[in-house]
């Protein structure tokens, strides 16, 4: 009980969550009198990071940094406009399509929302969309990032659940498309309610040029998805190859990337990845508590009294996690929650670990857009000069679409497992 108290007090004092986990573990050791654990405490922090799969985290971060700096984003958006720019409300769909392409390159929703808000929101506002709707569409599009591979969240889940990360990436493809389809319906619904401005089509020579310019960018997602799908490369290796090709594109093809910028990009990659790695290292000592206190067994006993049905169990988990995700950062929430809930899902309810992973990932990224802690909401607000509250209201069709997608996915595991070999 003291241990839980320390955890909650430190968490709400705004101590860094990684340290909250580490200090709670110290309290647990003191309370349980199992002082011999202190002898392996520093080593346990180290071994939390000693995993091959985690190499993908800095590498995918690096791909993102290189793509942003290399001017790939703007070229992808121009190409997307060729496809759907001419229809009424076209730019809203362009936004979504561009977000889908970005999602297949960038692995983090917050990073994607930050980039896309700066590019897409002003453009949509200029064409006559309401700024709140423009910001909401962009922010919702960012939710595709952790579902469509590559995904930082999936890498972390794969490491926590000890399942192949490549298969986890495959598992995300159909749910990502389902989510994108849901967002298209949401845009169509808003368009039907309030009407959208005409699209500006790109035609003829300009269209061909836009497509030609963007074509080399397709190399990066092709390497990532192709390498993993074909079983030629591990996700870690595909990430390194993608980083190499992104650097090549930026330096030699688009020439927006300067060689002198590389040291800064590597430094930023290292520091932003470390925020995540810190949490993972601390989670390894925190794991002692979950193990010794038999938390999964206790929660399972309680849940078994409520339901035997896997679908009902997943719905309960969804409700719980919507609450957790609204308070905690998605990655931190995943690190705390997976070691507790995954054993229950697997042993008590026979739920496939890939299925469970996709459902809780979508659920937890939703927390990015919901107050009080929605980082994505604040990033979108800061980038577009619209109040977070207004964006949140404009987001409601997208949030409803996400909830419906979550229910469908909880109900039908085959959408997740169909593409896994």
């Amino acid at each position, binding site marked *: 009980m003291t241990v839980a108290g320390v955890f909650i007090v430190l968490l709400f004092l705004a101590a860094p969550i*990684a*340290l909250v986990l580490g200090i709670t573990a110290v309290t647990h050791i003191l309370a349980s009198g199992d002082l011999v654990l202190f002898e392996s405490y520093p080593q346990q922090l180290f071994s939390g990071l000693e995993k091959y799969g985690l190499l993908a985290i800095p590498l995918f971060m690096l791909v993102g940094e290189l793509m942003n700096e290399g001017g790939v984003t703007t070229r992808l958006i121009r190409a997307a406009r060729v496809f759907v720019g001419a229809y009424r409300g076209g730019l809203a769909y362009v936004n979504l399509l561009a977000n889908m392409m970005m999602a297949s390159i960038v692995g983090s929703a917050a990073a994607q929302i930050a980039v896309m808000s700066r590019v897409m929101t002003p453009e949509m506002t200029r064409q006559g969309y309401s700024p709140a709707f423009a910001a909401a569409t962009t922010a919702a599009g960012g939710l595709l990032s952790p579902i469509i591979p590559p995904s930082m969240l999936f890498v972390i889940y794969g490491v926590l659940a000890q399942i192949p990360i490549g298969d986890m990436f495959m598992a995300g493809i159909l749910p990502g498309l389902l989510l994108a389809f849901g967002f298209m319906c949401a845009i169509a619904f808003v368009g039907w309610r309030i009407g959208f401005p005409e699209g500006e089509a790109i035609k003829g020579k300009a269209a061909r040029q836009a497509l030609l310019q963007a074509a080399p960018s397709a190399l990066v997602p092709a390497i990532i998805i192709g390498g993993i799908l074909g079983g030629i490369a591990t996700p870690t290796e595909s990430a*390194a190859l993608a980083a190499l090709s992104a650097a090549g594109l930026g330096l030699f093809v688009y020439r927006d990337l300067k060689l002198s910028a590389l040291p800064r990009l590597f430094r930023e990659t290292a*520091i932003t990845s470390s925020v995540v790695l810190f949490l993972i290292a601390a989670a390894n000592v925190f794991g002692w508590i979950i193990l010794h206190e038999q938390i999964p067994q206790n929660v399972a006993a309680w849940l078994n009294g409520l339901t035997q049905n896997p679908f009902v169990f997943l719905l309960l988990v969804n409700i719980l996690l919507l609450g957790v995700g609204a*308070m905690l950062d998605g990655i931190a929430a995943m690190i705390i929650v997976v070691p507790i809930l995954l054993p229950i899902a697997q042993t008590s309810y026979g739920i496939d670990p890939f299925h469970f992973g996709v459902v809780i990932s979508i659920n937890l990224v939703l927390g990015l857009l919901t107050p009080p802690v929605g980082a994505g909401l604040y990033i979108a607000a800061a980038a577009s000069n619209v109040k977070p509250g207004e964006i949140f209201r404009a987001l409601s069709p997208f949030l409803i679409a996400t909830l419906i997608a979550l229910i469908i996915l909880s109900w039908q595991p085959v959408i997740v497992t169909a593409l896994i070999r």
Partner: protein
Amino acid sequence: MTIRPIPILSTLSRRLAGVEAIAAGLLAAAVAGLILLNVATRTAGAALFWVDELAIYAMVWMGFLGMSITIQRRSGVSVTILTDALPPRLHRAAALLVDGIILAFSVFLLWLCWRWYDPLTLASVSYSVDAFVGETFNFIYREPTQTIGVAKYWVWLIVPLTAAAMTVHALANLLEALRSPHAAQVP
């Protein structure tokens, strides 16, 4: 002549974080380079068996250096809903308390590392690993790495180094926050 320990400590903390950032950036580049080397050598049919392990250690070292920078910049992920709602005085008190807790944890981690490496006992047995193991049942100096041919305690050294750096950063942050009249926590 007056010695002003707080500015000296702050400067030390900032310089240290600068060095850590450069080292972490180099390690990030090393991770990418090593994985690419692995792909290249394997495609050429001459795979190098030690590359993966070295890449993992580069990533772990990068991660630990970054953790220390995260402490220095106060940029770790945290839940701020409650503290943001507090009046300024209480907000400042909470921030100071957190700085103090971070310092206490850093010192504690450093002490755990000291006990783990136990340099005094090692010195007392004239650096004989056998005698050290017989005395303490601590196998730290016996643990090998898998493929890179270096004793594991060299690789593990990043933990005490990080704990020491975190102590410097946490102390500097706490003293700066105590000195400044404004709220310490940068949102």
